[in-house]
């Protein structure tokens, strides 16, 4: 059964190729339970942790999952993300920095960083988001992106030490990736900063 052996070899190759080339993007969301958690309980379900996140989220005026102009304290997505990734007693901003470093595919905001948002259409898959991410990061001053496929909202972190990119540049990056770009909200346009 030499062909069976060959097939097995190729299957192994394919699987190894996939595994070797993959960053485990879910790791940050599976952080073990914190000191306040009961045995087997995840931070996201931990009442003490949730209380802390309520506080640390308040410190940050705006996050990637907030709608334009909306405070983090009103944003359920941000609280959930913080609870799942912050260690016990850890400041939210520190935790976010670590998460960003560990998970390059899902960048998250660092406090006080200006952001812009772009409404996009036609991004139907995670790989599509990656294409848009690559184009946006070619723009001078863009430090990170966070793409909410379900709502078609692209959030872009901007370097405060560089000129804010033009709205058209951000739209063109989305269009270059093969998608439709609509309204852009720049930091000076009522981002809530």
């Amino acid at each position, binding site marked *: 059964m030499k062909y069976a052996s060959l097939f097995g070899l190729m299957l192994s190759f394919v699987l190894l190729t*996939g595994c070797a080339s993959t960053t485990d*993007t879910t790791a940050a969301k599976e952080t073990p339970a914190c000191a306040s958690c009961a045995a087997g309980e995840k931070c996201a379900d931990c009442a003490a942790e949730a209380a802390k996140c309520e506080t640390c989220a308040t410190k940050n005026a705006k996050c990637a999952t907030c709608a334009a102009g909306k405070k983090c304290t009103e944003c359920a997505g941000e609280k959930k993300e913080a609870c799942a990734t912050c260690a016990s007693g850890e400041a939210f901003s520190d935790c976010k920095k670590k998460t960003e470093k560990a998970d390059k595919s899902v960048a998250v905001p660092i406090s006080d960083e200006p952001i812009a948002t772009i409404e996009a*259409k036609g*991004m139907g898959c*995670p*790989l599509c988001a990656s294409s848009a991410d690559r*184009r946006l990061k070619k723009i001078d001053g863009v430090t990170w992106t966070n793409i909410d496929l*379900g709502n078609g909202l692209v959030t872009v972190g901007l370097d405060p030490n560089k000129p804010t990119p033009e709205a058209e540049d951000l739209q063109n990056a989305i269009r270059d990736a*093969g*998608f439709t770009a609509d309204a852009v909200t720049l930091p000076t346009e009522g981002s809530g900063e």
Partner: protein
Amino acid sequence: MGASFSDGRFVRVPASAVFAGVFAFAAFLPPSAYAQQSTDMPAAVQPGWEVFVVRQETQYMRMDDPRPDGFGSIDMFEFETTLAYGLGRTSALMVHVPLMYWDLEDATPAPDAQGFGVDDITVMYQHRFYREDVGPIETRRAVLLTGLEVPSFDEGFSSESFDPLIGVAYTRIDGRHGLNASALWKFNTNANDDFEIEFGDSSADALKLDGSYLYRLDPEAYTAQTTGSHYFQAQALGRYETNGDWQVMFAPGWMYEGRQWAFEATVHLPVLQELDSRAELEWGVNLGVRYLF
């Protein structure tokens, strides 16, 4: 009449009806069913500008050739590497390089034989001429496919001819549903393939007419934290050659798509086949990995 009918395993259905059915499945489903990219057929999706995607597929096919001068039982492996690059907002270039291995048993005239070589290389230029993005993930797209099969001149594998290709592909995505339809015609200018085993090996022109439906199993809804998706896919793959051979396969499968890579696996099952000039498919499987640079 194809050799496949001699043992009564398949139901006799007019070829025109089968192809009409395949196309109807792909193109005329109700508006509630739409598309994602599937594994074994072209789609109207392509890398973004200056984005580079490498795809590696490993396909195994178990075939049988009962013709008096046929190749007996055939185990065929195809290791295909695809390099795709986004040339602009609406265009992309793709190069397919297939390595082949086949193992023949009870073949005529040599009872047992093996071969390993490079099949013809396909260069495709894809131009998107229609795009309508109607929601955050909802889109309808169509592309024109043009290409050329470039001979590898590997004896026993290459047709040793330059064969033009032209076709169209349509993709529609709406929510968790995806739909693809494609037609690709190959003008076979010559054929010097000593082993006419699989589709396209003969000197006849060849048509691929495919349709697929995909359903996103997980997540139910995308969020900003989504890093990957699982899909079920069901493909109907039609193959027709102007020498009269035709074949329809059902290819269900699964696909995982992350933000930088994708893994896909499908099984190929013959539904109907009437083949006089090449081997019949018993079953096949295709495993693939895509990586975005």
